[in-house]
């Protein structure tokens, strides 16, 4: 927990200053999770605003401060899911616009070590987003929480309100779908990124 239970209780009782402190403590972490879940940096803050707005209006329904973090992550997952459903079509068309020529030009322009590192990270981001775009929003979120955020099955159980076995089945299926997409990815691009990822 990033804050004391007492602060959450005060925020729950309508203390605006306490709510402000809770948001200040969690916003960076939540924005990071949203960034990895949705993959669109320009929309991260908007989704984050929606998460904390929902938190403000639902905090009075929180049973105990002990379950605050799973509660907040549940709100985050729901907001990210809503965003992904709405933005999917727009996102697909933008991904299609990313031509190989653009990538080659950026590669040629990158001269310093920092620029090359940035380019390597951009390549990884784009490749992972491409992989995650090939599966459903539900699979994407579940896999990101487990594999990227490093959440345990116990934490996921609290967020999803389903038992461990059901989660294992869902995770297994989601992994299989991503593996299939990984195997089918552009061999040249995938090979280059695999080497880069191994270096990282």
């Amino acid at each position, binding site marked *: 927990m990033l804050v004391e239970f007492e602060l959450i209780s005060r925020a729950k009782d309508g203390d605006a200053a306490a709510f402000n402190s809770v948001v200040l403590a969690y916003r960076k972490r939540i924005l*990071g999770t949203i960034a990895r879940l949705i993959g669109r940096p320009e929309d991260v*803050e908007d989704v984050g605003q929606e998460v904390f707005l929902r938190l403000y209006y639902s905090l009075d329904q929180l049973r105990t401060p002990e379950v605050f973090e799973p509660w907040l992550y549940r709100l985050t997952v729901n907001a990210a899911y809503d965003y992904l459903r709405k933005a999917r079509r727009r996102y697909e068309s933008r991904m299609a616009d990313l031509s190989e020529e653009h990538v080659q030009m950026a590669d040629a322009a990158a001269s310093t070590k920092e620029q090359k590192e940035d380019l390597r990270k951009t390549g990884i981001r784009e490749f992972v987003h491409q992989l995650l775009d090939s599966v459903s929003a539900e699979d994407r979120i579940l896999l990101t929480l487990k594999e990227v955020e490093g959440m345990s099955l116990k934490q996921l159980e609290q967020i999803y309100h389903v038992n461990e076995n059901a989660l294992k089945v869902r995770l297994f299926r989601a992994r299989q779908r991503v*593996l299939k997409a*990984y195997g089918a990815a552009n061999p040249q691009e995938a090979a280059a990124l695999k080497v880069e990822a191994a270096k990282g």
Partner: protein
Amino acid sequence: MSFQNERELEGLWASYREAVPDTEPSPEFMPKLWQSIEARQRSRITIWTKLTGAFVSVSLALCLVFTIASAVEDRLTPAHASSYIDALSEDTPSDTLAYAHFQPTADEESHK
């Protein structure tokens, strides 16, 4: 091949986590959030005010309609002009009243 892909994918997740670190929110994050909260509170109050206004208007209109309807009905029904006792005595024959011992019958008068 599949096992190899699984291992590569695990490495890729870790690289992705590193490539997308937690980012600092912009300075406008908190002011914007409070603006959104206040805007929603205002819209909730506006909706409540509108609903209350509509309820009062409908109630007043119904009161007016019932008052007018009641006044019109009073005018059209003359029976309402007389009192309950008047209406009862008009409708009740005298022998019924005698049976109810409200007044003596002719036999009772002769016995006396």
